[in-house]
């Protein structure tokens, strides 16, 4: 454990020293991954389905605000859909417009989640999102997560129904339109996932704010359990055909990943908890202070051997 804590100290020092390069690099990585995934899933427009284009856009995203990644990802999706089917572009474009007009107008700070959620779905670790957002976000993050889920399932719908939509003729525009809207709105799996993630996120948030020892660990475990339960109940009620084994394994992997997050964000020593009580003119204060676990970095000793006469050590 001490080795890990020392490594954490080194990483913190490294991040604070090179933050100016690391933050844009992380933005670049997120934008690059998201755009590559969009291209691999949709990829109908050859003009944007090229590595140099993705690299240029990801580079632009690296020095722009995080919201720019969301806009670029939405633009890439719409361009691909436009090359595939105009009806899909209109329906999905309308959904994006509603999200931007009604929710992102409030400029929440966690818009990156809208991109991260579909990315985690593709990487088969979606359950990491509600648990980690419950730990580091607020209950309103559930709306951002829900937007991310909707985006993923819309792309998934188009991806799965390519042959059906391609098979329809130009005269069947109205029918095509109806099929796309029905396909997106009547997706029970999407509704169950939104419900499960929202319940998990809010539960994790409530538990981690409780004044109990190991609140974060309990919140993570309870969140994971509730997540699996809601998805299974949803499967029984709406017959969503969710893989039970996949859900359980995905949740366990997500728990491990959020454990890493907890180590970096909230690693405290409950054995040294102090409870103090005092008062002023207006209030009584019951303060519980939990110390962070920290270790001092070992100082490097450089021994210089410069001949037999001048043997000395320098720090």
């Amino acid at each position, binding site marked *: 454990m001490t080795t890990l804590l020392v490594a954490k100290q080194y990483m913190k020092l490294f991040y604070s020293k090179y933050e100016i390069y690391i933050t844009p690099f992380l933005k670049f990585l997120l934008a690059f991954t998201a755009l590559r995934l969009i291209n691999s899933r949709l990829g109908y427009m050859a003009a944007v389905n090229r590595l140099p284009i993705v690299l240029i856009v990801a580079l632009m995203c690296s020095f722009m605000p995080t919201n720019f990644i969301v806009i670029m990802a939405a633009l890439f999706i719409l361009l691909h859909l436009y090359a595939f089917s105009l009806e899909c572009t*209109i329906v999905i474009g*309308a959904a994006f*417009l509603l999200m931007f007009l*009604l929710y992102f*107008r409030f400029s929440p700070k966690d818009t990156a989640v809208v991109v991260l959620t579909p990315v985690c779905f593709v990487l088969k670790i979606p359950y990491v999102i509600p648990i980690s957002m419950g730990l580091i976000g607020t209950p309103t993050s559930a709306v951002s997560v829900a937007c991310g889920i909707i985006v993923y399932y819309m792309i998934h719908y188009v991806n799965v129904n390519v042959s059906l939509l391609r098979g329809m003729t130009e005269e069947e525009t*109205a029918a095509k*339109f109806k099929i796309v809207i029905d396909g997106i709105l009547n997706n029970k799996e999407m509704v169950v996932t939104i419900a499960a993630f929202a319940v998990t996120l809010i539960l994790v948030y409530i538990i981690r704010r409780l004044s109990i020892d190991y609140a974060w660990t309990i919140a993570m475990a309870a969140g994971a359990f509730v997540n699996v339960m809601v998805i299974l109940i949803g499967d029984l009620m709406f017959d969503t055909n969710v893989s039970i084994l996949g859900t359980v394994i995905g949740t366990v992997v997500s728990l491990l990943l959020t454990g890493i997050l907890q180590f970096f964000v909230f690693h405290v020593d409950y054995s040294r908890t102090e409870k103090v009580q005092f008062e002023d003119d207006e209030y009584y204060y019951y303060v519980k202070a939990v110390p962070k676990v920290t270790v001092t970095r070992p100082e490097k000793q450089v021994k210089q051997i410069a001949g037999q006469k001048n043997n000395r050590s320098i720090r």
Partner: protein
Amino acid sequence: MLNEERVILMTKLASYEASDGKRNVAIGSYFRVDYIGWQVLKSIISATIAFVVVFAMYIFYDFEIFMMDIYKMDLLEFGKSVLKTYAVVIITYALISYVVYAYRYSKARKSLRLYYMNLRKLSGMYSNK
């Protein structure tokens, strides 16, 4: 000689200015009524556009049936029900916006009060030099 306390205070102030400070200063330059009123107005415009988009999708969804029924239906009644739905949507969204922006305004003012207090403290440090 460097005054350590002053440097710490200046760093804190600069960091605030670079993050939340910029937004809060912009909010603080409005009167409460003006800020909330302007934001709610923008929300109403956004909600109106969103309503038009949803209404258009609703019409297109069953376009053929709608075109067949348009001659049979009571257009006045249909218009009334659309307007009623629009009013409900707009009022709900405007209320949510009001709550959000009223909270943001009071939070920004509180944070700015602390910022200006620290600025005065910094200025005092220079005059006491």
